[in-house]
C-alpha cells in the first residue's frame, strides 16, 4: 500500500495541498477527481518525487520513505505518465524503449501487434504515443502507475482503448491512479474515487458491488463543486421579451479542420444589455472560442456583429465593428512585460488621435491618458512608467481591462476575466462589464467558476469539449444541472 499522510504543499500564498491524506491500494484503479486547481497535479508530483512537500510524509507498505527525485520514486516502484510526453520525436519506438532501459528484442506486450517498433515517434498518433509512454513507465515494473489527465488529449475512441489497457494493467496487480476532472471517466473505470477540492479530500466513495449509482454520482459532483454559497447576486437586467437587438451572433461556428478541432458547431446570440456567461471546466476549447468570436482565429460557420457578416475578416475588422477582447493569457499575450504601463495602455489605440500625430507618437498624450486610466481604475502602484512586469496579476488585469474599455466596445468577449483575482478586483471587473451592458452593449464571458457566473450573468450556457449548450436565463436554471452538464454533457 502507498500512503500519503497529511501532505501540505504551498506555492507562495497558494496552498495547493492542505494536509491531504490518501491511500493507494494494490491492484485498484483509484480515480482522483477534482476541478482545475483542486490540487491533483501537485499531489501526483509529490508522490512521484518531482516536488518535495512542505510537510507530511509518504509511506510504502508502512515504511516511511523520502523522495529526493523521480528516481527514488521509481526505485520504490512508482511509475508516472505525465500529461505532456517525454519522448524523443525523431527516435523510433524501439530506440525510445531502449533509451528507457528495455533490453528485449521483442516489443512489450501492450505494443505488440499495434506497431512494428520501427515507426518514428513523431509519426504516431497521440494515442499511440501515449501507449509508448505507458510502456516506457512499465519497463521499471511499477506497482503503482500514476497517470495525470491521460484522457485530455485523446479522442473518445482512444479513451476507450486506454481504459481497456488500464484495466489490463490492473489485472496484473498494478495499482492505477487516474487523475481526471471528468466524472464520467472516473466512474467508467475506478474501483474507488477520491474527490479533491481546494487541496483537501472532499469526498471518498467506493464502487458498490452493483456498480455506481446516480446518488453517489450526485454526491461526488456536490463534493467537486462545493456547497452553494449564500447568494451575492447583483441586480440584473429585467427580463425583456420580444425583439431585443442581437449584437453578436454565431451560427454553426467550428474550428478549422487540421490540428485540434476544438470548437464544434457553436451557435449563440449576445444581445444588447446582457452579460452572457459560458461556464465550463478548463480546457474545453474556451480560448479557441473566444479568439474565434473576437476575430483572432479563422473559423468555419458564420459570425455577425450587429447584423454585419464578419466571417473571414481579420481581427482589426472585428475591432472596428466594436468587438473587444480580454484574453486569459494576461502575461503571455495581454501585456508587453518589458514596456511601461502607459505604453501598454495605448496599445490598440496608438494610431488614433490624439496619440498619433502624423505618425509621431505623442508622448504627452500617452502619459496624460495613462495617468487618467491609472487613477480611474485604481491601478497600483499608481505609476504608469513602471514596466508591466512589475504589476501584480490583478493590476495587470485592470490595465488590460482599462485598455479594452477605452475602446468603448459594443461587445466584449472576456475569457476568464476574474481568474486568480481577489474579491474586490473581481467585483471591479464585473462592474466594468455591467457598465458596457448599461450603455447598450453586450458581454460574453467564458468562466470557470460556476457560482460566480450564476451570481453575475443574465444568461448562462455550458461548454464541454468544444460544444456550447443553449443559453438560458439564469433565474430559470438549476445549479446542479449546470454542474452536471459541465462534466457530463447534456
Amino acid at each position, binding site marked *: 500500500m502507498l500512503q500519503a499522510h497529511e501532505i501540505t504543499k504551498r*506555492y507562495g500564498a497558494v496552498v495547493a495541498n492542505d494536509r491531504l491524506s490518501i491511500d493507494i491500494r494494490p491492484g485498484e484503479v483509484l480515480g482522483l477527481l477534482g476541478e482545475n486547481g483542486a490540487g491533483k497535479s501537485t499531489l501526483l508530483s509529490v508522490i512521484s518525487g518531482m516536488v518535495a512537500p512542505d510537510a507530511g510524509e509518504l509511506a510504502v507498505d508502512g515504511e516511511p520513505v523520502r523522495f529526493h527525485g523521480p528516481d527514488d520514486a521509481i526505485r520504490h516502484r512508482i511509475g508516472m505518465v505525465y500529461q505532456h510526453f517525454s519522448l524523443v520525436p525523431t527516435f523510433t519506438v524501439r530506440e525510445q524503449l531502449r533509451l528507457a532501459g528495455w533490453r528485449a528484442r521483442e516489443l512489450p506486450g501492450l505494443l505488440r501487434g499495434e506497431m512494428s517498433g520501427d515507426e518514428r515517434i513523431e509519426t504516431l498518433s497521440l494515442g499511440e504515443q501515449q501507449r509508448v509512454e505507458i510502456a516506457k513507465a512499465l519497463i521499471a515494473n511499477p506497482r503503482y502507475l500514476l497517470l495525470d489527465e491521460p484522457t485530455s488529449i485523446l479522442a473518445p475512441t482512444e479513451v476507450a482503448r486506454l481504459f481497456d489497457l488500464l484495466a489490463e494493467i490492473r489485472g496484473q496487480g498494478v495499482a492505477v491512479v487516474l487523475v481526471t476532472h471528468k466524472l464520467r471517466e472516473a466512474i467508467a473505470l475506478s474501483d474507488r474515487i477520491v474527490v479533491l477540492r481546494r487541496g483537501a479530500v472532499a469526498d471518498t466513495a467506493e464502487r458498490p458491488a452493483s456498480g455506481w449509482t446516480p446518488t453517489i454520482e450526485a454526491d461526488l459532483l456536490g463534493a467537486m463543486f462545493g456547497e452553494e454559497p449564500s447568494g451575492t447576486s447583483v441586480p440584473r437586467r429585467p427580463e425583456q421579451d420580444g425583439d431585443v437587438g442581437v449584437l453578436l451572433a454565431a451560427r454553426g461556428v467550428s474550428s478549422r479542420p487540421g490540428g485540434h478541432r476544438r470548437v464544434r458547431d457553436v451557435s449563440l446570440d449576445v444581445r444588447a444589455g446582457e452579460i452572457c456567461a459560458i461556464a465550463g471546466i478548463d480546457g474545453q476549447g474556451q480560448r479557441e472560442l473566444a479568439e474565434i468570436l473576437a476575430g483572432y482565429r479563422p473559423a468555419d460557420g458564420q459570425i455577425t456583429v450587429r447584423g454585419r457578416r464578419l466571417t473571414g475578416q481579420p481581427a482589426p475588422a472585428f475591432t472596428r465593428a466594436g468587438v473587444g477582447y480580454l484574453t486569459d493569457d494576461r502575461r503571455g*499575450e495581454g501585456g508587453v512585460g518589458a514596456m511601461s504601463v502607459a505604453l501598454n495602455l495605448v496599445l490598440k489605440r496608438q494610431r488614433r488621435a490624439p496619440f498619433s500625430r502624423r505618425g509621431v507618437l505623442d508622448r504627452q498624450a500617452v502619459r496624460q491618458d495613462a495617468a487618467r486610466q491609472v487613477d480611474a481604475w485604481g491601478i497600483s502602484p499608481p505609476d504608469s512608467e513602471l514596466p508591466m512586469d512589475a504589476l501584480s496579476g490583478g493590476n495587470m488585469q485592470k490595465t488590460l481591462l482599462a485598455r479594452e474599455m477605452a475602446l468603448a466596445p459594443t461587445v466584449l468577449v472576456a475569457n476568464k476575466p476574474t481568474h486568480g483575482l481577489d474579491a474586490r478586483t473581481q467585483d471591479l471587473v464585473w462592474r466594468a462589464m455591467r457598465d458596457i451592458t448599461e450603455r447598450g452593449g453586450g458581454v460574453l464571458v467564458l468562466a470557470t467558476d460556476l457560482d460566480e457566473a450564476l451570481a453575475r450573468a443574465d444568461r448562462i450556457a455550458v461548454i464541454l469539449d468544444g460544444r456550447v449548450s443553449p443559453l438560458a436565463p439564469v433565474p430559470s436554471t438549476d445549479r446542479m444541472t449546470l454542474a452536471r452538464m459541465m462534466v457530463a454533457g447534456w
Partner: protein
Amino acid sequence: MVAVGSMTGLGRRVPIARRGISGLLESLLAVAGVLVLGAVLLAITGHDPVVAYRELVSRTLLRPTGVQEILVRATPLLLAGCAVLVAAKVGVWNIGIDGQVLVGALAGAITADALTGAGRPWLWLGAALAGLVAGGVWGLVPALLRARLGINEIVTTIMFNYMAMSLTAWLVKGPLRDPSLVVPQTTVIDRALRLPTLGDTRVHLGLVVALLVTGVLGWVLQRTVIGYELAVTGANPRAARHGLIPVATYVLVAFVASGAIAGLAGVNDVLSTKGVFQAEWNPSYGLPAFALVFLARRQVAGLVPAALFLGLLSYGADVMPRAAGVAPAFFEVLEGALLVALALGAWARSRRGQLREDAP
C-alpha cells in the same frame, strides 16, 4: 537629435532610468573585463601588458591620425550596427550583414561607374540608392522565408553570406571585370569623385551619413508610432498580434531595412576608402556589428560610443603588430570575448528574472 532612453518607457522616471544605468554599467564592466582578459593574454604571450596598452592608447587615442582612423573605421561599423539593431528590434537576428554589404558594395560600384559623367552628387546618390536596393533585396528572401514560413533567419542569412561572396566574386572576375586591369575588380572610381574628406583629415562624408542614418533610426524607433509597433512586435509578438499589429509585415520590413542599411555600409566603403570593388573581399562587419549592438544594449544612443570602441580595436589590430609585436588576432580575441562577456551579462539578468517568475 538622438533620443536617449528606449521604447520600453517614456523615459522619465526612476525605474527605467535605473535600468538604463545598470545597463551602461554592465557594458562598461564587459569592456573592462575584456581588457583585463587581454592583459592576461598579453602577459602569457610574453608581452608587458602595461607597455602594450600604453602603446595602443598613444598610437590611437593620443594622435590626430589615430583618432581620424578610428572614426573612419567606426563609420561602416556604425552603419552595420544600425542594420543589426533595426532587425533585432523585431526579434530578427540578421547574421547576413556581410553578404548584404557585399552586394550593396558591388551594386554601388557598378552604379558609380555608370554615373561617372553625371556629377558627384548624382553619382553618390545613385550609388547609395543602388546599394540600399541591392542590400534590401538580398535581405528580402530570408525575410520572406522567416515572415511567411517561420524559417530560422540565422541559418538562411549565413547561407546568403556565402552566396553573396561567390556571386560577387564571379561577377567581378567575369562579366563585370575591368578588362584593362589584371586584378579582378570593378573600374576604380576617380579620387575626385569619391566622398570628400572633412577638412584636412582622413575622415570623410560617410561619417556624416552614418550619423544621419543613426539619428533618423533613433527618431523612428523612439518617437514614431511605427517605432512603437516595432518595439511591441520585438518584445512580445503575441501581444503585438493581440494589439492588432501586422507582425509578419513588420518582420519583413525591418529585415529588408536591415539589409538595405548594410548595403549602404558597402557603398560607403566603395565610395571612400576602397574606391573599387575587389573580388574575394570579406568585409567582416557582421560579427563586430553584433558585439556593437550588444555593447550598445540595443539602444540607438549607445551605437556611436560602441562603434568608436570597436573602431579602436580594429585600428589597434593594424598598428599594434608593428608597434608592440602584438598579433592582429589578439584583437579578434578581444572582440569575441566581448560578445561572450555581454552574453554572460544577459544570461545573468534572465536568471534573475527567472527566479522572480518561478513562483506560480
